[in-house]
């Protein structure tokens, strides 16, 4: 009969009107990110890093800018590990390319910023800052 579908539709929406709500009250409530989540800043574990630059080689969009320095013991060090988030595709290739698992994501998804410069940051410098702050 004509019009039956209209009434069924109204019943569906009325059921939802009294139903459970899906809203997550964002700033107070946050959904935890999954284990595999790719996003936020790149974290570099300098103790593990062997400065092989494979991560920069794997990057499809040259989002990583690395400078390596060789110290007096002929050991290679990362001097700068610049991650340009503005260019990053978040494809995870760098993390997978790392032979010693020194790279990881910090899983922070609130990475909007006012200025373009703030998208670029240095993972090594970040570690220094963390050390200073304890």
């Amino acid at each position, binding site marked *: 009969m004509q019009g*039956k*579908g209209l009434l069924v539709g109204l019943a569906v929406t009325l059921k939802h009107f009294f139903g459970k709500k899906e809203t997550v009250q964002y700033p107070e409530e946050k959904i935890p990110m999954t*284990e595999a989540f790719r*996003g936020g800043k790149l974290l570099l574990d300098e103790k593990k890093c062997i400065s092989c630059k494979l991560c920069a080689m794997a990057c499809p*969009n040259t989002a990583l800018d690395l400078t390596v320095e060789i110290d007096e013991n002929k050991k290679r060090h990362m001097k700068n590990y610049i991650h340009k988030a503005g260019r990053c595709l978040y494809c*995870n290739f760098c993390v997978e390319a790392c032979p010693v698992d020194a790279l990881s994501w910090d899983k922070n998804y609130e990475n909007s910023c006012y200025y373009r410069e703030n998208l670029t940051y240095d993972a090594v410098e970040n570690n220094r800052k963390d050390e200073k702050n304890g």
Partner: protein
Amino acid sequence: MIQTESYKLSMGPVHPSTHGVLQVWLTLDGERILRADPCMGYLHRGIEKLLEKRTYFQCLPYTDRLDYVSAMNNNLGYCSAVEKLAQIEVPKRAQYIRVIMAELNRIASHMIFIGSLAVDLGATTGMIYPFRDRERILDIFNELCGARMTYSYIRIGGVKSDLAVKVISMIDDFLAKLTDMIDEYNDLLTGNEIFQYRLKNTSILTAKQAMELGITGPMLRASGVSYDLRKDNTYCSYEDFDFSIPLGEKGDNWDRYIVRLKEMSESAKIIKQALAGLPTGEFMAKVPKVLKPPKGEVYDVTEGPRGEVGYHIVSDGSAKPYRVHIRRPSFINLQALDIMCRGYLVGDVVAAMSTIDPIMGEVDC
């Protein structure tokens, strides 16, 4: 003396229902359409050119960004083309996982279709429900590979990671709920008389016209042509699964909607079978760290949610492709817009555009 004349109306590129940045030049006689010219290119990023400067592995994230609501299917298309070129044998388990993910993504993509069709016809609530349900699929993908839209999960030679137990239980959970979800769309939209009146007998595309234009995917099947690469040009062990291909009769908007709605349950069937018969073994073939396929070219097609996703790759023997051409189904399907709109009203243009279901990232490449 009263004189009537036709006028031109630019629908888009900034318009609520052009699915992104599509511009359609309408030639109108009052509200009746005399001609509709889709004008593309507002989202052109030169992906085909970008791929020439990247190694075969590095190309993968760019294919995510073509059809961004069904990235898995694009990954699959690219990877199978490269595998064909480099003659890599993909393990059975990887093939099954690929099938599961591609079909899940097909369901997600069809949910977007239902949602955008509903909102283009003015039913906002009809949009929210499918989008809410699609979120469940995105959660699965997020758990699986850490991204919600741009997965880069299907890799050359296999998949990125094995299926975790948690992911399998999430998929089972979703499939159990899918019937209820589809019932809800049926109650809210399919059964609704206004919805039926809007879609039935509008924007008819006959089988002959569709084949002449090279239309593929659900649009072609809605016109009554049984052509599905999953059956007709089997790839990725689709021959192991038992499923049917829903067909339309007339090729009107209604058929295009119903075909996609039915395809969702067919996809669910495939996923169930694949999960039940998931073979053990490797999920990744042995692929050299630097992939240098032999000189030559390859064209490989897979069935995406919108039609035939084809990759034509030319190799000159180096680590980077010499040329990649991508056959994007949305781009080709959009050519039918003019035929589908002529003689109908402005309200039908919106419905026709929705049932073509173009994704601008794919149209403009």
